[in-house]
């Protein structure tokens, strides 16, 4: 699917950061993938191997921090983890969710050697 192009974007971002800092080697790239980001972690790990194979990052590890969805009920401000796609507020029973976390799709840091 498109985890491969996500991997390519991660590579581009990592290389750009490394270039700015004049780094020799990128040991690992840390990314945050939210539960609701639309990216499958296993597929991304698999795609990473393929995407980096012929690049400067062929030995670079991809470190994935998975971020679960947390919801804030707009009605009573209770925060909860939904187990299901659509889960009513455990406190007031209303369904008016604001997604607080879980949509992240970002490169947080790179670990480098000079």
């Amino acid at each position: 699917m498109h985890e491969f192009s996500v991997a390519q974007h991660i590579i581009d971002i990592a290389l750009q950061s490394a270039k700015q800092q004049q780094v020799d080697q990128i040991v690992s790239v840390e990314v945050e993938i939210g539960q609701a980001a639309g990216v499958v972690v296993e597929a991304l790990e698999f795609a990473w191997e393929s995407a980096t194979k012929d690049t400067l990052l062929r030995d670079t590890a991809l470190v994935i921090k998975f971020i679960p969805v947390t919801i804030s009920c707009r009605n009573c401000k209770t925060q909860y983890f939904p187990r299901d796609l659509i889960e009513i507020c455990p406190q007031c029973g209303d369904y008016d969710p604001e997604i607080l976390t879980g949509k992240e799709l970002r490169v947080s840091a790179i670990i480098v050697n000079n």
Partner: protein
Amino acid sequence: MCDTCGCGEGVAGYRITKPSGIKNNHSGLVDQEHFHGDHHHHTHDHGHGSGHTHEHSHEHDHHHNTNDHDEEQARRIIVETDILQRNNLLAERNRGYFEARGIMALNLVSSPGSGKTTILEKTIKALSGYQIYVIEGDQQTTLDAEKIDATGTPVLQINTGSGCHLDAEMIHKAVRELDPQNKSLLFIENVGNLVCPALFDLGESARIVIISVTEGEDKPLKYPNMFQSSQICIINKTDLLPYVDFNLEQIKKYALKVNPDLSFIDLSARTGEGFGDWIQWIKEQIS
């Protein structure tokens, strides 16, 4: 797509073409077909299976002693960059371009076969007198662009190859070729896919998800991203309602669960039933 490394997917390797027979009255458009991005050709003699051999092919010289030198010298550089940032930035550029020129850009998304192209053909007919442009997205063929071309509407076909969605860069390039007039209407018919296009902002003014009555009421629950990111939901092929077990009220209930702000238009592109509501909505957006 290259089997070994998957190249050919995503941004590099898509193609923008004009359907044959289109009259080109723009100066400066020379080629009918051109490729975007480099299509890398790798030699296919990768011998290894999973995992990579750990050769120390690094340029810098240092001694490998018992200490883990990597950790001593390693430092952490904060990046905090959104992965889809490049697409989002380009999408905002597109959005600014459209707003500056008063162009209403509508992104039509759906599974394959829900009737996007037919709806478009009928829409163009119903909106004669309006300046309309179309961008068609498919993995392969210019079949859809040819259909639109037959209506006399300026159209470009984007073939994504193995790609599963249109992205902002493709739209950016296609729009530059189309060079739409100010205050015109641009329809973008995305690749038929209920999953991936949801993630990719194109810079559109509105996103319209199209679902037909033969697809089942539970699709909004199964494909929530698509329904969450759209503003209008067209339910097509209502002429087939007597022949399928499809509950019109139920699908709306499900869809409203994932997106309480969604509006619905029930229609049949084939018979024309309900089509007036769709045309009315478009006219309201333009004025």
